[in-house]
């Protein structure tokens, strides 16, 4: 089966269409038919029987994509399911997600890949594109069956949650994946430096008496992987970068034409290690929140394109898993329903990026870099659309999340920028 499509025509009228894939920023209409974009731009007539959404004063963009989420199924359905995660995504204006393979069992074979994909289709919210693991069991020892998983629908490969510690295995993965035109995504963390750490190493860790994770734990892997991509010609995608040094190293790699792409999470461009004060486990994530200098460098990296993608690293946990001693609490926060608000508030409204850049980093470039359908409203493209109001204020209330997770540091924060309608396959799947 495939992802469900809308049975009626859907006309989005009078919005500001921003679609960097076509260099488009103009007021006009978008018509969706049979799961595809039938027409985009200008004033379109209303076909008989069409559903109409008035988008006057709103932005109409190709559906947002998030290539870094944890859906927890199979294995931890008490924490999140593919369906609840995909529902959470559309509530945040995100029409497609890539699910990381650190499930139980690990998504390291075609059977689990097919299962995750099918669960996404059954749910009918956001499209779900599974990641496959790089190594069997994410153990870092032997290469998983990448070709078969590509056949089953895996779009990228990662051992996320853990780094690929063996440089030789990473080299092999980059070489092997080339033939299948899929990115290898790395969780950059030198465990010999990071082990036992639970926050950024710096003044705050010194004050709180918590073991820190130095920036270099990430940066050593960033440069190692860039050099391996240079050697192999493979595509390395660097996950959730968190330090100024990482931005500089990626810039160095891109200047040399190395096939490296990079992402940053909403929390790393909006919060610093100060959020950990008081041992706030909802500010515990890996990589950890860093310093104001890092936040600024990451924002600049998004602005100048060194960082390609804005992602969430959506990581739901059960509330009582976070309700414990800081060092023992699990890493990660939910992010799908706050990402747009955070990105608008901290990047767009501070004048760091334009609306076009926001849409590019949340949609077009996600599709391009991960070779996914979508990311464009050009005629014939997928009828996945995000309609949002960049100026609408709202206050984050975690009890209203569609995600099963409530673990967010943003509870009570007010954001400017909210998704109002989310359309997947020409079906309106969410309205605020």
């Amino acid at each position, binding site marked *: 089966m495939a992802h469900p499509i809308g049975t009626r025509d859907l006309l989005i009228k009078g919005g500001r269409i921003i679609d960097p894939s076509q260099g488009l920023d103009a007021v006009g209409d978008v018509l969706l038919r049979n799961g595809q974009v039938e027409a985009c731009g200008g004033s379109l007539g209303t076909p008989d029987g069409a559903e109409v959404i008035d988008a006057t004063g709103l932005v109409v963009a190709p559906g947002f994509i998030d290539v870094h989420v944890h859906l927890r199924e199979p294995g931890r359905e008490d924490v999140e399911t593919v369906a609840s995660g995909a529902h959470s995504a559309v509530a945040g204006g995100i029409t497609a997600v890539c699910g990381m393979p650190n499930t139980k069992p690990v998504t390291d074979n075609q059977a689990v890949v097919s299962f995750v994909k099918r669960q996404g289709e059954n749910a009918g919210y956001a499209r779900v594109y599974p990641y496959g693991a790089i190594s069997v069991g994410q153990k870092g020892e032997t290469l998983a069956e990448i070709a078969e998983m590509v056949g089953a629908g895996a779009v990228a490969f990662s051992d996320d949650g853990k780094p690929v510690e063996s440089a030789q295995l990473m080299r092999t993965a980059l070489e092997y994946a080339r033939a299948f035109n899929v990115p290898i995504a790395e969780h950059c963390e030198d465990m010999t430096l990071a082990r036992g750490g639970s926050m950024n190493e710096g003044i705050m860790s010194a004050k709180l008496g918590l073991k820190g994770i130095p920036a270099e734990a990430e940066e050593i892997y960033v440069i190692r992987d860039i050099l391996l991509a240079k050697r192999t010609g493979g595509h390395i995608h660097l996950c959730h970068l968190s330090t100024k040094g990482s931005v500089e190293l990626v810039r160095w790699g891109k200047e040399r034409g190395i096939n490296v792409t990079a992402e940053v999470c909403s929390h790393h461009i909006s919060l610093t290690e100060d959020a950990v004060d008081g041992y706030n486990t909802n500010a515990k994530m890996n990589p950890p929140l860093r310093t104001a200098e890092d936040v600024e460098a990451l924002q600049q990296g998004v602005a100048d394109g060194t960082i390609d993608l804005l992602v969430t690293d959506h990581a739901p946990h059960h509330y009582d898993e976070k309700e414990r001693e*800081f*060092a023992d609490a699990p890493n990660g926060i939910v992010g799908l329903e706050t990402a747009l608000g955070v990105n608008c508030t901290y990047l767009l409204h501070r004048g760091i990026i334009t609306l076009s850049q926001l849409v590019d980093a949340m949609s077009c470039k996600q599709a391009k870099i991960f070779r996914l359908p979508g990311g464009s409203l050009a005629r014939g493209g997928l009828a996945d659309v995000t309609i949002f109001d960049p100026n609408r204020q709202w206050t984050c209330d975690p009890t209203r999340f569609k995600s099963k997770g409530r673990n967010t540091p943003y509870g009570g924060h007010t954001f400017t920028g909210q998704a109002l309608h989310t359309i997947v396959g020409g079906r309106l799947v969410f309205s605020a």
Partner: protein
Amino acid sequence: MPGPLGKDLLGLAPLSADQIRLVLDTAVPFREISERTIKKVPTLRGATIVNLFFEASTRTRISFEFAEKRLSADTVNVAAAGSSVSKGETLVDTARNLEAMKIDMVVIRHSASGAARFLAERIESNVINAGDGTNEHPTQGLLDMLTLRDRFGDLAGRKICIVGDVLHSRVARSNIWGLTKLGAEVAVCGPRSLLPNAIEEMGVTVFDRIEQAIEWADALNVLRLQLERMQAGYIPSLREYNRVFGVTSARLEQAPRDLLILHPGPMNRGVEIDSDVADGPHSVILDQVTNGVAVRMAVLYLLAGGKPELAEAAKKGNA
């Protein structure tokens, strides 16, 4: 109703200089109780206190227990081994269960930084931090300060150097917070691999050589060097540590003035401190232990809502 310290004693970082002075001043009259034949006053009669020790402790646990008993509180000791904790109960569940038994105070020792605060935010009873991970050990900091004050009077302008494994030391953090609030100058000295690399941003001076520290300081607070640190590769050997950072009488003889020597215990004689220094004329290590009971009595009294001005009367059994 919260007393002058608030509901809990979680660390010295959250306290003001006046609050710290108040505890030290209150400890002085309580010290005399321990000198009596009948070492007991009825101040906390009827109060129930749980000593919740998730980590092994001899000195601190006994010191708290004496402090509680000399104030006539009813105490229960819970050690992690043999309790529901060893059956996998979470800290929050342990806390709620204790609370349900209607207790008045909890003294907690735990291996996780922030554990005391975590507990304090979830129960109504007063919580006293008896050491949380590598964060704070406030009553140790207070007893160190009382001991220094006994000798120096005012601590303002006094130079105190903390020697050894500052990175893993809750004692060091409580000393840094407390001493700087009272206007003392604080330095640390130890292998760089055992100092947080942002330590200078906490307002302390770093000495790489124990000789420099000895030349500078009025007092040394010598930390225990744990064997595990060597096993974890932070230093090459205990022998080399003693040769480079050990507080020895030969080194102290070079000091321009007599130095007060403190050690929170338990000591590794011949590693961080030589026996003739530990047992020597400038050592106040046993005074620290005596002061420990008095400081803890003062903390219990103040958290229970006791009026500082009545501490003298409490001593006589009238308050």
